[in-house]
């Protein structure tokens, strides 16, 4: 994985001191809260319902064991012994004190981490496919270019006061695990007819109150040109993105208002100007230098099958279940990608205790894993596990309470912190998500239901990606009472789509029943091999709606 050189290291140190000075000025009253707010946000520090919240960048979701251990240390010393992984593959601490934050930044700098631009109206942490470097169908590892984006966007002098936040994601496979079309810029690494690798650039995706799937702006941008192209997009946005209304300030509004052709024309004009200058051309040697950091480990020459693995599947039902859902084929023979679910039934989605973090780091050391990944689905991933080691790895995970066998199933819910923590939220999301998990806890039933992505947000800002859920749940506030709307048919994958609202919302005591009726409708209507999303796309909303609301009416009489 990427290692800081003296320059990167100095940047994060100096950033910590810069922030210390900002905190000092705020405490002395030299900065108003209104002035301090964007400054602290650019350093990932929010003021929430009960306290400050600190968001730490995990660039393209990759962590080393020593970084995981440092997060555990911070969780114990400055927080309440746990942290929270988010849908943007960051880690959040919900209870730090303002005066401690500069010190936390230095602890992070010790292990080459930071909070730079994890919030605020600037280019945020860059995310990438969590199976990068391991996925069988990958054109190339999406992380080197993501690291180049990270450096280019860090302290960008022109783009630190954009109309609104700006998120970039990169994927290099047909199957899109990075939800690129839901980002302000989504990059898909592709090959052209001449066999050269380059980038397809989507712009203007986003959730929030006006959900949009991104439009294709750059059909094929060369490797040398990509930074100039991205800079051109950002410049058009900085100049013409709306600043009069926060709800219309994202680039998605500009792109969809101008249309793909006009937006592309404006970008091309800027792109030509930037190219003329030539200073942003990406030298192939630099890309190579960064790529070398992400070179895969030396894979052993292993057979496809492993007797240890086969024996464990026969002997241990828990392992067999886990293997069924939490393993993904690896590009190297005899290896697998293992997903560690952070959706333990009855636990807060994405939460992880300091002991679990240390435990994960210890497994990494013991089995020689150089890295662990954070996925935007709020799980962890061991990208390169020898199949023969899987039973032992699973046993260790299980002992840490991290052996839940539900990756991709109905209880693998994406969920924002909601009203329990967040002052933007209108409704609680964690208790609802837990109640759904409990209702569907039966593993056999989960397997029978197959892939169902439930995504839930406690407000219209959609941090829980409800627009992209096969089943999306949105918490709203109706005259002081929490209500939950259901959406169906969303997707965050390569077939990205915006979910459709089913109808009036449900109270907190009705929502779980309503979800169950949605699922039962699917079971009744499905054809062999169909996922809930496929059935919905085939039959439409009406049958679901009829079932869900008819039964609600019966219940009322």
């Amino acid at each position, binding site marked *: 994985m990427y290692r800081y*050189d003296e*320059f*990167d290291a*100095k*940047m994060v140190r*100096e*950033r910590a*001191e*810069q922030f210390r*000075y*900002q905190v000092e000025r705020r405490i002395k009253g030299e*900065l108003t809260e209104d*002035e301090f707010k*964007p*400054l602290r946000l650019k350093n990932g520090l929010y003021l929430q319902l009960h306290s400050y919240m600190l968001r730490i960048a995990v660039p393209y979701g990759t962590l080393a064991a020593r970084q995981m251990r440092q997060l555990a240390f911070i969780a114990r010393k400055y927080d309440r012994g746990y942290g929270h992984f988010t849908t943007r593959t960051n880690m959040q601490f919900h209870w730090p004190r303002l005066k401690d934050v500069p010190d936390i930044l230095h602890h992070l700098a010790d292990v080459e981490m930071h909070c730079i631009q994890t919030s605020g*109206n600037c280019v945020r942490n860059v995310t990438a496919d969590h199976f990068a470097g391991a996925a069988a169908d990958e054109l190339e590892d999406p992380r080197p270019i993501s690291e180049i984006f990270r*450096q*280019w966007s*860090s*302290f*960008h*002098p*022109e*783009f*630190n*006061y*954009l109309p609104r936040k700006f998120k970039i994601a990169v994927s290099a496979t047909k199957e899109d695990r990075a939800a690129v079309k839901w980002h302000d810029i989504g990059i898909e690494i592709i090959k052209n007819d001449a066999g050269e690798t380059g980038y397809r650039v989507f712009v203007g995706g986003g959730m929030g109150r006006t959900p949009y799937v991104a439009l294709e702006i750059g059909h094929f941008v060369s490797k040398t040109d990509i930074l100039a192209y991205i800079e051109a997009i950002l*410049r058009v946005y*900085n*100049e013409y993105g709306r*600043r009069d209304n926060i709800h219309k300030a994202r680039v998605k509004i500009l792109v969809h208002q101008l249309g793909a052709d006009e937006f592309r024309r404006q970008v091309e004009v800027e792109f030509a*100007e930037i190219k003329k*200058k030539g*200073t*942003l051309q990406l*030298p192939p*040697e*630099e890309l190579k*230098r960064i790529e070398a950091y992400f070179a895969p480990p030396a894979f052993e020459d292993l057979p496809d099958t492993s007797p240890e693995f086969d024996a464990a599947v026969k002997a241990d039902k828990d392992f067999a279940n886990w293997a069924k859902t939490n393993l993904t084929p690896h590009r190297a023979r005899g290896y697998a990608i293992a997903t560690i679910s952070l959706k333990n039934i009855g636990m807060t989605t994405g939460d992880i205790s300091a002991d679990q973090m240390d435990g994960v780091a210890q497994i990494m050391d013991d089995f020689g894993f150089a890295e662990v990944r954070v996925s935007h689905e709020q799980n962890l991933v061991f990208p390169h596990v020898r199949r023969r080691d899987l039973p032992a790895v699973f046993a260790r995970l299980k002992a840490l309470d991290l052996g839940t066998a539900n990756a991709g199933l109905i209880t693998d819910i994406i969920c924002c912190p909601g009203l329990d923590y967040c002052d933007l939220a209108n409704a609680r999301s964690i208790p609802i998500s837990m109640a759904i998990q409990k209702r569907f806890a039966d593993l056999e039933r989960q397997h029978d239901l197959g892939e169902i992505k439930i995504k839930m947000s406690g407000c219209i800002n959609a941090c829980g990606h409800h627009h992209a859920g096969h089943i999306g749940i949105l918490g709203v506030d109706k005259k002081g009472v929490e209500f939950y709307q259901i959406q169906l048919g969303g997707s965050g994958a390569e077939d990205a789509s915006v979910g459709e609202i089913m109808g009036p919302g449900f109270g907190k005591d009705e929502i779980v029943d309503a979800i169950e009726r949605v699922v039962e409708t699917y079971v009744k209507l499905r054809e062999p091999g169909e996922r809930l999303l496929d059935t919905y796309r085939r039959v439409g909303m009406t049958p679901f709606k009829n079932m869900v609301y008819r039964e609600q009416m019966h219940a009322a009489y």
Partner: protein
Amino acid sequence: MPLIKDGKFVQDRFLFIPDGQAFPDDGGVMVTFDRFQSECATLLAHHRPVAVRLASSQNPEVLKDELANIDAIALEFPIFRDGRAFSWARMLRERYAYKGEIRAVGHFLYDQLAFMMRVGFDAFDVRQDFRIEEFDRAMREMTYVYQPSTDGRKTVMQIRREE
């Protein structure tokens, strides 16, 4: 307002004349774009230093044919969060090769000075109580830069490649 130029407090060469007010007999003047447009000939005939002040919504492209006659351009920050002028300054320097003064006016923060220098501002209308040591400090906060910009500073990538 005190003015910092090239890192030092300097005497302001321009007096801002609001629209509708008469020009003084001599000395440099700063006017809005509207005024500049309507009274361009008179202003330039006088052979006095002329500066134009642009609102954050005004693309400096509107001045591109007159740049040789303009001694300074003031770019306004109505609120420090409005970052359009960062792009305008860069465009003036890089696309139109503007060599005159680019001044930041309005509401901006200490924490933005280094970025402003990077994109081509060289003059700053600062608050009454602003100390020059603060300016120096702002310039020293970060030793390295990752991106090429108007200031021509070597990027980390360039330094790495030289090593």
